[in-house]
């Protein structure tokens, strides 16, 4: 047990590649948290995906011991995801800390994601420790970046520390400044227990492991505890700390960070943001503030490329869900793609990660429909929530449609400001405000439909700014929008997988694009195949795949019969792999190619 005034709880806020994991590695080494032989790069990023992409998906908490001024300190470093998809998770991690190291690459300057997370940290009352990283790089413009950082944080130039996480230069000083500047936790240990769950993971042997910060009171091992949001009463089978491997302790006390195992097998009952208290008469009256149910922002249909893999996909989703409480899914049946699941994700990165994990860890081949947001269809009597474009009712049967909008923050070099504004404007954006961080860099706030962001906004932003702009956004709620559903028909038969809800003035363009793309992808059949795009009953685009005229083996005599039969058998197998839409055979690849929107998702810390 450590006295609260010897505890410091902090996190690191940084943009991707600004050096967060490298700095964490140095801190682990400096505090001898990991034996030399066990040390490896990006120590805290445990998933392969995290290490490959250089991102953090799951939060980690690690306890570091450090002696300064003759005193032993317990430092809890909480490593958080930083991507906009996980803003809520980030906010809970921040709520577990008293301080944040704001780490900025001196050669790059501050980025939108860093700024957004900085604002989250400041709003959560955290003490900010601004730090310039990579000062060893020749192209580092430490002076300019420091000026920008001082301006954003509102601190003096002298308060900004300078380190090289790579060489270790300045890292000891940083650690001591964290101890000096970050306040110790307020730790009313006599109050009823309240501990904040900021993440969880699933262990095949132990069940759900909840990561928590004890705010008030004491959490002893073997105590009966209650999860306040879910109302579950369970036994605390084990409490412990990550040092950095899980190490049991008899109790976690107010101000401390650690883990709790209750034997629970369902990660959905251990919700990020929930409060753990004691069961029975010692329980707290009120939970900690800020709890919220996970809310999917982006939806997409996932279908096995091989129809027979439906059961495998279901099992895989069930398994993933064990470790990912924010993933939701429900069965979906598509005429074109067969049986699959409509899945809700926190955002595009989350979607990408889930898809990649399904394909890699479960060896599945998947077809994903274009992602869409959740629409609200307002009727006189009720509001219908639509997660799938095909569920969008026909015009005339409702009062209006509402779509989610976000407040986007874009930081861009000033020279690309024009193209950035053009892009936002063309995506139904409304300028909220704009300011210069420095003569060279501008910060722009736009109100934008989320649907525009999840289309190809990020790709466009990157290509118009040669990769220099960064983007972050926060939800602003729902507003009415003039949207219509565009359907794509093959030979008169709608292909549900290609339906989309788009702004009315862009509906025709979308229809034309899909129809033209499909004309290239659909093989010739025995009859002319009309490919049409329609809004309700109105056809807005049309192409024709002309009937195939010749498909016959020219010669077939004695010696060749076996070989020719095998050719036919191959052709038959190929046909069997196709999906039938009405009378039209469509190869799998055509669906995949038509649905590919070639957008990459920014991975950020």
């Amino acid at each position, binding site marked *: 047990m450590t006295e609260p005034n010897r505890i410091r709880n902090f996190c690191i806020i940084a943009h991707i590649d600004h050096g967060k994991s490298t700095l964490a590695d140095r801190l682990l080494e400096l505090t001898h948290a990991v034996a030399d032989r066990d040390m490896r790069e990006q120590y805290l990023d445990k998933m392969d995906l995290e290490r490959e992409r250089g991102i953090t998906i799951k939060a980690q908490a690690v306890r570091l011991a450090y002696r300064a001024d003759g005193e032993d300190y317990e430092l809890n470093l909480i490593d958080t995801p930083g991507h906009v998809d996980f803003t809520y998770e980030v906010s809970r991690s921040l709520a577990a800390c008293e301080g944040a190291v704001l780490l900025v690459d001196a050669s790059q300057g501050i980025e939108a994601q860093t700024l957004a997370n900085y604002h989250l940290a400041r709003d959560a009352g955290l003490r900010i420790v601004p730090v310039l990283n990579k000062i060893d790089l020749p192209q580092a413009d430490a002076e300019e970046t420091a000026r920008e950082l001082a301006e954003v944080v509102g601190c003096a130039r002298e308060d900004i520390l300078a380190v090289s996480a790579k060489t270790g230069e300045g890292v000891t000083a940083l650690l001591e400044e964290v101890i000096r500047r970050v306040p110790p936790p307020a730790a009313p240990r006599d109050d009823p227990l309240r501990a904040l769950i900021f993440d969880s993971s699933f262990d095949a042997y132990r069940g759900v492991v909840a990561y928590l910060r004890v705010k008030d009171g004491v959490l002893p091992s073997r105590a009966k505890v209650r999860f306040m949001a879910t109302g579950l009463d369970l036994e605390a089978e084990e409490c412990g700390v990550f040092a950095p491997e899980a190490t049991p302790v008899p109790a976690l006390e107010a101000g401390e960070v650690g883990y709790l195992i209750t034997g629970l097998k369902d990660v959905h009952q251990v919700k990020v943001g929930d409060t753990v208290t004691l069961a029975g008469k010692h329980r707290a009256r009120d939970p900690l503030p800020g709890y919220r149910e996970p809310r999917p922002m982006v939806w997409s249909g996932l279908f096995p490329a091989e129809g027979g893999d439906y059961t495998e996909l279901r099992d895989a989703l069930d398994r993933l869900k064990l470790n990912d409480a924010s993933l939701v899914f429900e069965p979906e049946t598509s005429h074109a793609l067969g049986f699959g699941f409509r899945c809700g994700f926190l955002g595009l990165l989350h979607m990408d990660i889930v898809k990649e994990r399904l394909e890699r860890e479960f060896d599945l081949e998947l077809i994903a429909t274009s992602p869409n947001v959740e629409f609200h269809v307002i009727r006189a009597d009720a509001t219908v929530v639509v997660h799938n474009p095909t569920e969008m009712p026909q015009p005339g049967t409702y009062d209006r449609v509402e779509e989610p909008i976000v407040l986007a923050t874009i930081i861009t070099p000033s020279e690309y400001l024009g193209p950035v504004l053009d892009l936002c404007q063309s995506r139904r954006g409304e300028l909220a405000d704009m300011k210069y961080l420095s003569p060279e860099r501008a910060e722009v706030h736009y109100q934008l439909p989320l649907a525009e962001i999840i289309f190809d906004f990020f790709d466009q932003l990157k290509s118009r700014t040669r990769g220099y702009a960064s983007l972050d956004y926060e939800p602003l709620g729902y507003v009415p929008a003039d949207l219509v559903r565009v359907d794509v028909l093959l030979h008169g038969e709608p292909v549900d997988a290609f339906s989309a809800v788009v702004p009315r003035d862009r509906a025709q363009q979308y229809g034309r694009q899909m129809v033209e793309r499909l004309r290239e992808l659909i093989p010739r059949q*025995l*009859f002319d195949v009309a490919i049409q795009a329609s809004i309700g009953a109105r056809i807005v685009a049309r192409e024709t795949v002309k009937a*195939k*005229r*010749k*498909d*016959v*083996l*020219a*010669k*077939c*005599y*004695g*010696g060749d*019969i*076996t070989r*020719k*039969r095998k050719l*036919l*058998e191959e*052709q*038959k197998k190929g*046909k069997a792999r196709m999906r039938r839409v009405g009378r039209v055979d469509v190869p799998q690849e055509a669906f995949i190619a038509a649905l590919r929107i070639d957008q990459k998702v920014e991975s950020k810390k």
Partner: protein
Amino acid sequence: MSAGVYVHVPFCLTRCGYCDFNAYEALEHLRGRYVAALMLEAELAAPAWSREEFASVFFGGGTPTTLEGEDLAALLRSLRALFSISSDAEVTIEANPDTVDALKLAGLLDAGYARLSMGAQSFDSAVLGALERVHNPDSVRRAMHAARDAGFANVNLDLIYGADGETVDSWERTLLETIELAPEHVSAYALTIEPSTPLGRKVQQGLVPGPDSDLQADMFELACVSLAEAGYRHYEVSNWAKPGFECVHNLGYWERRLYLGIGAGAHSYRDERRWWNVRPPQEYLSVVEAGRLPIGGEEVLDRSAAHLEEIFLRLRILEGLPTSMVDPEVSTPFIESGLLRHDDDALVPTERGMLVLNELVLALAN
């Protein structure tokens, strides 16, 4: 059920770029041994086929006429001695226009080869060039006249359409020239690119464009019209004949009659079993000369393979499929769209249907 015997002669003066048959140039020195091996193999095979009645003999290749006339005559005599070949059996020999003259042709006819099949391919020298054929249009005309002079009353000309550079106009001239020469039988094949051939490799490398299937469809339709007007009956996807001159031997393949193949790489078929001889001539020679049947492989057709063959072979010809073999629900849409028609108790492809026969076969074989 009558059977056919096929004799393979794997020698050619030159290899054509599109050809993937078991044929070789510069192996002429093996001819003597090869003729002897054919006779030996026939002897080895004969006991198993002693109860079969043969209605056709077909010498194919390669180029059978690269063999000496005397050898060809001796081969046919030996077959007649070993097998029960009916006196009116159809006996065909394939010939290259450049390897025959009046004298040789007269000898062949005299020996009993009453049907002559010549590879004309095209009357457009540009097209012959694209096919890497060594002959020119004149040699086809000359060979045809020589055949007539020698007394041949049953001649087939092979044509190929859709080679690189060939136009519908050029194809029409080839058809007219063919009709002018008045063969009893015409085989017209859409050029098929086989990956293992020199032409196939050129197409894969993008040096030569592959055939345009729409253009080949136009050419097919033109052949249907022109040849019908000239009195030829379109009795198989790629074959037309004056009435009574349909090729008995080839009909045997499509009607799934049994056949015995002799020679390097030749295939045989009987009782839902198909087997084939070793392909390389040298290997063929050494096995036969050791007194063994040169069988290189075999397959036994299971029910689904036999069913598929029944459908795809029978649909190639006018006799078609017995209506009872096909669920009317499956066939009706094709009848309505004009790809199939009823002919008494048979389902027969229309000429449009023949052009997309693979699609019909796959639909009907399900």
